[in-house]
């Protein structure tokens, strides 16, 4: 250690220079923002509940079940997603489809969103492109455990359509 490092005063002053630079720059930016003279926020902090969270486009959010052009769900109850799910959160009960060209359809399709680990394997496994995880809805909440088990009707709705 050189002499200036040993006496530590020089290093203290260098440190104070760095922190003071940050202090005055941020003070300047925040003051300008308060006075309305600056549009960008002073800090990169995302003030979360007031400002929506930034979800990347490839993020795996809540599942959504897609519909065919005639409005029926694309799901043919092949059970591939239920089989591959590592958390065993999908429960499907199959039934005969009234359409001859389509063998089966799902009588009930339930995902327990509290158990789901959001791995995306069900999306990769589905041969019909019936399930996707691109809804971008990552904030799941309910008052009871049952409230987090969503059925086919709820899962088919897009996030902005609400659930009734």
């Amino acid at each position: 250690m050189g002499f200036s490092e040993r006496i530590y005063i020089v290093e203290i002053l260098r440190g104070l220079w760095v922190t003071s630079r940050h202090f005055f720059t941020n003070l300047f930016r925040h003051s300008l923002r308060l006075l309305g003279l600056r549009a960008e926020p002073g800090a990169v902090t995302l003030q979360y509940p007031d400002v929506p969270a930034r979800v990347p486009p490839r993020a795996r959010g809540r599942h959504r079940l897609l519909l065919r052009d005639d409005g029926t769900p694309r799901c043919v109850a092949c059970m591939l997603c239920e089989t591959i799910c590592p958390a065993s959160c999908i429960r499907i009960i199959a039934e005969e489809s009234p359409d001859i060209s389509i063998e089966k359809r799902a009588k009930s399709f339930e995902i327990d969103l509290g158990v789901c680990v959001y791995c995306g394997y069900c999306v990769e496994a589905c041969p019909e492109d019936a399930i996707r995880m691109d809804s971008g809805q990552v904030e799941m909440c309910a008052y009871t455990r049952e409230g987090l088990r969503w059925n086919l009707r709820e899962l088919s709705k897009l996030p902005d359509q609400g659930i009734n």
Partner: protein
Amino acid sequence: MNETLIQTGWSFFLVLGAVGFGLKLAALLSWVERKQSALIQDRIGANRADIFGLRILGLFHIIADALKLMLKEDFIPPKALRPWHDIAPALSLGCSVLCLAALPFGDRIVFLGRAWSLQPLPLSAGILFALALLSLGVHGVVMAGACSGSAYSLLGGLRAAAQMISYEVAMLSILAGPLFLYGTLDLAEAVRSQAHMFHGVIPAWGIFFQPLAFLLFLCAGAAETKRAPFDLPEGESEIVGYFTEYSGMRFGMFMTNDFVETVLLSGLAVTLFLGGWHLPGLSGLPQPFLGLAQVAVFSAKVCAMLWLLMQLRWTLPRFRFDQLLSLGWKRLLPLSLLNLLVTAWALWWLS
């Protein structure tokens, strides 16, 4: 109205003013600390506390913190030695607040045919008073550590006491430097000795004539008040300190004591080294405005010192305990004695 009534009333007002100054600055310091550290670290800081939707930059957090501490459960450990456990926070806080009253907030002002002092406790040995009360502060810490009924608190208290005692010894010889320079122990006289211009070029403040003593005083003072890089006893979430068994407002009193001691440290530094209430070119004002201006200048300087101490807290890493003690005994004490020797020699040579 007889004279004693007026003097008593004025003293009462001054003491209330000094205590209010200290406690209000301490409350504001808790907000300043959060916001200053946030600005240094490129973030926003606490801004959520609001009253009916009005959030003024997070200033309501001060009230929120105080309310939270007051409403918490007052848990007293069963093995605590009751009277001493209860007295310890009060003793610590009392010593620091009492010491604030000895600072000169302004010169003696002559108004309405009377001389009014702006120093709540006009002592002829102000420096000794400050040192004595800092020493009494050690009692509060040791009491808190030893009478909490917990071995961790005891060890924390002993650590804190060892740190405070080491730096008190250094503080005595550091303060002897300005004492030699001003020739008096009286704080008001010390400021008056600095209240002129040196050959019309620079103000005759202590920092220009005793720069080493100023640095050493900051160092020893910060260590004495367990502040800035010397906050090992109160390392918050990292090490068990002497106040872990205190809850609610008892703990709040220790935290307030931390901030009040910071204000006290700044006040002493401003009084002894930064020229107190003196600002060059201010003596032309008429009388009550001169007193107000002096108090304002003193407050501004104290705020600048507080800003500096806060910056130091968030700039420097914490000292390890053995580094702390070796700094106190092996570096500060010899350097302060060197400073004393140089000052004494310079004063002899100049006479």
